[in-house]
């Protein structure tokens, strides 16, 4: 067995290398131009001029404002909404409905949702049409700005409706590790009402499990680019979009101020993460005194009924956005103020089919390869852990968790530019290998986190039985353990597959514009005006992500169709 142990030891080291190396190297090479070093521009003197240019740039204040409003606003509201829904709806039938609807909700990629949502809230969108021409009196779309409003409200709302389901998923996972039912029972027997039980007993135990997912949401909201292009403000845009524009400016001297901006965005993100941690500490200090004041009932107890309202809005907006996409994709003509298209046709799809072929295949291949590599690395790490008998702990150590979350806590744009610079130096830009690698960096954390609990709770005795029946350990692994874990493995691969499909910036930067994926095409179309084509592309993105999940459901169902014990 010692030979096997040596072989498996490379997995954690390999995984860390795959993972952290691009980030560290990318950061380094992004910072260099910020201080004046960029060989492509023939500049190699230390200079603070990029920062001066940045700080005096007229767009900066507006960009920072939109970034803060959308980034902090969306994260805080998502957390609040998710916790409120959990507190008010736990144990009810709506709660079970929410649990079942989370997987479909999460399979709708952000960009596709953003486009559908923009169809809802546009001045000529579905919501206005539902009240036009009666009772609103509109026969022409009103002259309002909803999409791309200068205060980034629509961007904030878009992220709110996508991040809340994600946080709810983390809440479900966290609650399953607590004895919620009986904690509520004890709390009520002591005279406490629902709200206080949750704020004083359950949430303090739950929050540590939500901390990293929330910080990932925060970092994402502050630095997202594709959503900001689709539905964010344009004059001035968010900081991330500003940086992206500088990096794509034909005038190469913009790279300097871009790099300075990327550094600023990194610092802003780190500051917000730090503030969140400080805030958490302060709140827990204050709360620990209040918890024991003995007051059984919160004044907000009356509002508990609002939970179902918010949950239904959450589900409803997602469903309506998807429906709007579907309708536009098969609409031949759909004039304002008609509620439904006047004529339907599939010509939108047939016309787009030939153009879709390449982006869809590129996306599918990249996603498949990255989730395959990810699962190999992740399973290798878990197996190595078994060998070292470290799997006695049933939860990942805090330190490992922070490392796994690292790519999700750093703004993508803050290190992707550096990677592109490095690749250009070595003439590696635009190669499939580097594209897969960069997708892998973001797919790995999700695959790891999705699979971790289930994989580690596998009863190792099945494998021992296999070995005791004469199979060599490797054979026992492949023919017993892997097969038994097919469903969770395929599911985490599907999650990774969806993550890869949805990647935007990594494809653009590392692919140096040579790879057209369904997501890059969808986002570039979003600035256009033909909603029918936009809908077709957005739905294609969604359907592609969905095939991953459908495979994860159908394949085990076929494999184990005569095995009832495998049907959980």
């Amino acid at each position, binding site marked *: 067995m010692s030979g096997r142990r040596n072989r498996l030891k490379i997995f954690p080291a390999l995984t860390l290398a795959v993972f952290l190396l691009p980030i560290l190297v990318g950061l380094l090479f992004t910072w260099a131009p910020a201080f004046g070093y960029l060989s492509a521009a023939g500049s190699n003197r230390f200079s603070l001029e990029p920062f001066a240019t940045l700080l005096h740039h007229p767009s900066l204040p507006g960009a920072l404002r939109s970034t803060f409003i959308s980034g902090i606003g969306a994260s805080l509201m998502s957390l609040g909404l998710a916790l409120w829904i959990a507190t008010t709806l736990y144990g009810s039938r709506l709660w079970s409905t929410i649990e079942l609807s989370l997987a479909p909700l999460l399979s709708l990629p952000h960009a596709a949702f953003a486009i559908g949502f923009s169809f809802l809230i546009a001045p000529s969108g579905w919501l206005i049409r539902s009240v036009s021409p009666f009772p609103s009196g509109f026969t022409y779309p009103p002259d309002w700005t909803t999409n791309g409003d200068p205060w980034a409200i629509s961007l904030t709302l878009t992220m709110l409706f996508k991040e809340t389901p994600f946080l709810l998923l983390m809440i479900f996972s966290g609650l399953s590790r607590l004895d919620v039912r009986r904690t509520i029972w004890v709390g009520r027997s002591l*005279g406490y009402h629902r709200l206080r039980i949750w704020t004083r007993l359950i949430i303090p135990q739950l929050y540590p499990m939500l901390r990293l997912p929330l910080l990932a949401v925060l970092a994402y909201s502050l630095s997202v680019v594709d959503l900001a292009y689709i539905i964010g403000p344009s004059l001035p845009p968010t900081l991330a979009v500003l940086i992206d524009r500088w990096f794509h400016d034909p005038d190469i001297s913009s790279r300097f101020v871009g790099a300075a901006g990327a550094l600023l965005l990194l610092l802003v993100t780190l500051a917000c993460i730090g503030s969140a941690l400080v805030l958490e500490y302060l709140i827990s200090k204050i709360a620990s005194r209040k*918890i024991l004041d*003995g007051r*059984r009932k919160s004044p907000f107890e009356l509002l508990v009924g609002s939970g179902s309202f918010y949950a239904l809005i959450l589900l409803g907006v997602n469903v309506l956005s998807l429906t709007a996409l579907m309708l536009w994709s098969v609409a031949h003509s759909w004039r304002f103020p008609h509620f439904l298209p006047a004529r339907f046709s599939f010509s939108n799809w047939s016309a787009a089919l030939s153009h879709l072929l390449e982006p869809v295949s590129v996306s599918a291949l990249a996603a498949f390869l990255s989730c395959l590599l990810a699962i190999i690395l992740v399973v290798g790490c878990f197996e190595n852990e078994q060998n070292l008998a470290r799997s006695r702990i049933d939860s990942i150590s805090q330190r490992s968790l922070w490392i796994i979350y690292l790519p999700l806590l750093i703004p993508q744009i803050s290190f992707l530019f550096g990677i592109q610079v490095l690749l250009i130096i070595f003439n590696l830009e635009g190669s499939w290998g580097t594209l897969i690698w960069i997708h892998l960096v973001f797919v790995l954390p999700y695959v790891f986190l999705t699979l971790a609990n289930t994989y580690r709770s596998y009863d190792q005795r099945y494998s021992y039985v296999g070995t005791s029946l004469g199979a060599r350990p490797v054979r026992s692994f492949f023919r017993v353990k892997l097969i038994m874990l097919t469903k969770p493995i395929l599911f985490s691969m599907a999650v990774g597959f969806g993550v890869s499909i949805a990647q935007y910036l990594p494809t653009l930067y590392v692919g140096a514009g040579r790879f057209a994926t369904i997501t890059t095409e969808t986002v570039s179309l979003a600035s256009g005006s033909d909603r029918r084509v936009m809908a077709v592309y957005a739905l294609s993105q969604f359907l592609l992500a969905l095939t991953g999940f459908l495979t994860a459901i159908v394949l085990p169902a076929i494999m184990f169709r005569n095995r009832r014990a495998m049907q959980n």
Partner: protein
Amino acid sequence: MSLVLDSIKINLGTVQLFKPLSLTAPPGSIVTIMGPSGCGKSTLLASICGMLDPGFSFSGAITLNGRPLNGVEMEHRKVGILFQDDLLFPHLDVFGNMAFGLPARMSRRQKRERVNNSLAAAGLEGFGPRDIATLSGGQKARVSLLRALLAEPEAILLDEPFSKLDENLRGSIKQFVFDQIGFMNIPALMVTHERSDSADGTYIELK
């Protein structure tokens, strides 16, 4: 001062869990309800303290100290409950767990005094600031009971409270629980499937 159950019937769909149950639990004594697993003992307790799952239908009358409990919200019933797991709140220390059940009108100093007196009387002097994760099984069981009693319930329910304790602990914890309940002089209902757990009070088999 008693807990009175009158013709309690609980149905899950069409299945009646046990024959109509009537009993009177006088203060300071423990009524033991015995029965095999799955016969509805825990469901009975749930119905008494007010946490019956909506899938069950319930008929009969529960009266505590002359006060009808039917339809009263669980928070207002003043019925304490003790489980086989201690269910101490891990994010609070021993003092926090016990003070949680005290009324709001007490000042912090009064609460501290109450908790410390209670701990001292139970042989757990100085345990207030302890992290509950550092307590032994027997210590946890005692703190759990003290927490329930400190809330001054008018009745207490015990759901197989000793089944997870080690053999050598059982005897001393049992005596501790029975002594405390006798001292508080409140009615108690205990369900168990271990014959040896029963107290000196009334003994009923659930059918």
